[in-house]
């Protein structure tokens, strides 16, 4: 019923009932509710954890949060989303054309949903998926998007970082719709306990000739997911080989930790790309981050310096990593790490 309400407000915007009806903003001379659309990310069976962070962020933008779930098995995921606290409505677009959620196909569904419900903001987590879809949608709405928001001050004022986290910028957006991604580690995951209404998303013209999904090759690991792990153990160039990375895995397994790496370790082929922590890899903020054989270049620090406790093990006492470490151990990692694993 919201479109009718917004018409109501445009006609009778002088009515003073708006304070009674929750948060209302003035936009383009029209008063309307603050309403946010979250674009859900999932793998056709379960919701990606970063969507829960995005739902929390959406709650800070206004009280009315809707989530759009697109995909070949969207209804199943929509049931999970409806149970998340703070979610009022779940829009479902289930169609085989939407399998694998290619941005060219998801964007028209987002735009059709926006056309019907006239959201004041549209948000997704700043993952590879969110970073692909959000600007594409923003372009269609002629809005400047806002990337990797780390703090929401009000419906139009946000904080984000630039220069690999070395400048923290507070911005105010005058875009007609605030279209943004949020950094997962900056917002707590929304918890269970909601009872959102599930309904079909408005029909959209999804063209299939532009792009086609061929395959994917996901790294399999029993260890906790890097982005959400409470403890992360990372190895760098100092580990010297892929075989030696076993030392890092062994320690991680004792601690129940996720495993990360510096760019140098990835470039040298010790580990896979998706383990890179840093400005251009993953941003993590665990309770404990243990950097082993990592010097601490600006680009690496950008991905981990919000960790609660940082431990560095490095034989070079001048390594920049020691400037951010709470506990530094100047030692040869080939001696110290096995010793540590054995002692735990």
């Amino acid at each position, binding site marked *: 019923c919201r479109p009718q309400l917004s018409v109501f407000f445009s006609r009778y915007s002088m009515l003073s009932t708006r304070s009674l009806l929750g948060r209302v903003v003035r936009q383009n001379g029209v008063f309307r509710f603050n309403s946010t659309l979250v674009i859900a990310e999932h793998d056709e069976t379960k919701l990606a954890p970063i969507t829960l962070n995005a739902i929390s962020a959406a709650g800070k933008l206004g009280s009315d949060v809707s989530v759009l779930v697109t995909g070949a098995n969207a209804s199943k995921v929509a049931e999970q989303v409806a149970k998340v606290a703070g979610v009022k409505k779940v829009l479902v677009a289930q169609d085989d054309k939407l399998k694998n959620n290619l*941005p060219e196909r998801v964007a028209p569904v987002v735009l059709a949903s926006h056309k019907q419900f006239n959201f004041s903001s549209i948000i997704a987590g700043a993952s590879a998926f969110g970073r692909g879809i959000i600007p*594409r949608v923003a372009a269609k709405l002629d809005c400047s998007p806002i990337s990797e928001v780390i703090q929401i001050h009000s419906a139009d004022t946000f904080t984000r970082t630039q220069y690999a986290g070395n400048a923290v910028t507070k911005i105010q957006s005058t875009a007609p719709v605030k279209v943004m991604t949020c950094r997962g580690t900056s917002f707590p995951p929304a918890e269970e306990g909601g009872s959102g209404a599930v309904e079909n998303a408005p029909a959209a013209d999804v063209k299939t000739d532009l*792009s*086609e999904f061929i395959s*994917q090759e996901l790294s399999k690991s029993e260890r906790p997911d890097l982005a959400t792990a409470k403890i992360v153990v990372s190895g760098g160039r100092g580990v010297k080989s892929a075989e030696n990375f076993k030392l890092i895995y062994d320690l991680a397994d004792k601690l129940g930790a996720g495993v990360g790496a510096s760019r140098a370790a990835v470039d040298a082929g010790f580990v896979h790309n998706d383990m890179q922590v840093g400005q*251009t890899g993953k941003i993590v903020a665990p309770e404990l981050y243990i950097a082993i054989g990592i010097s601490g270049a*600006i680009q690496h620090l950008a991905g981990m310096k919000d960790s609660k406790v940082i431990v560095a093990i490095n034989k070079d006492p001048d390594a920049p990593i020691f400037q951010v470490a709470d*506990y*530094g151990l100047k030692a040869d990692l080939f001696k110290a790490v096995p010793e540590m694993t054995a002692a735990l």
Partner: protein
Amino acid sequence: MKILVGVKRVIDYAVKVRVKPDKTGVVTENVQHSMNPFDEIALEEAVKMKEKKLATEVVAISLGGPKSQEILRTALAKGADKAIHVEVPDAELPKVEPLHVAKVFQKIVEKHKFDVVFLGKQAIDDDAAQTGPLLAGLLDWPQALFANKVEKADDSHLQVTREIDGGLDTVKVKLPAVLSADLRLNEPRYATLPNIMKAKKKPMEKLTAKDLGVDLTPQTKTLEVNDPPVRQAGEFVEDVHTLISKLKEKGFVKA
């Protein structure tokens, strides 16, 4: 196939930036600048595609102050055939948003009929990572972001392997398309002295956003720029034993 490559002049990746005391931005005067590292990779891939006879022409484009021409000359020295400089006065540059850049590129693409626009996945100054998907949206072209491998699928399609959160995926995009380069797509070459000399004679078109009819009115206002919070100084520990007892104190390791 004609390829347009976007290149941006940014503060060099190795420079530790300083926030201005008046909180309006970071200090850019007398600071080493260079081509955005991801753009170097995009350019390298485009030049390689030309060398493999997949592409016929590689054009580099940059939007920025007069010094952006240095970056464009570097692009020409590395193998671009032509350059386009869309000049924005230095004073206005901090207000230029990825949406404006995408609109400028859109006009250029429509004017010169490119088949591929290749960009870096993000600029290391604003860290926005928006221009590629914005442009794809404006043009209604498919997008393949974070490319790790680019191959020709057939005459009208490219097959792109992308770096995603859990590993890699492969998509096929119909030409024309927008691509963005990830770090591990290739190893960019260095420009040799003879090529640097030759680059001075290659054509560089100069125009302004106004010539293209693009309005640069910002939609984002910077309220203040601050230093990130400083971490409290830590301590060196003697040995592994001490380290573990510290971690026990903090509750990370069961006592």
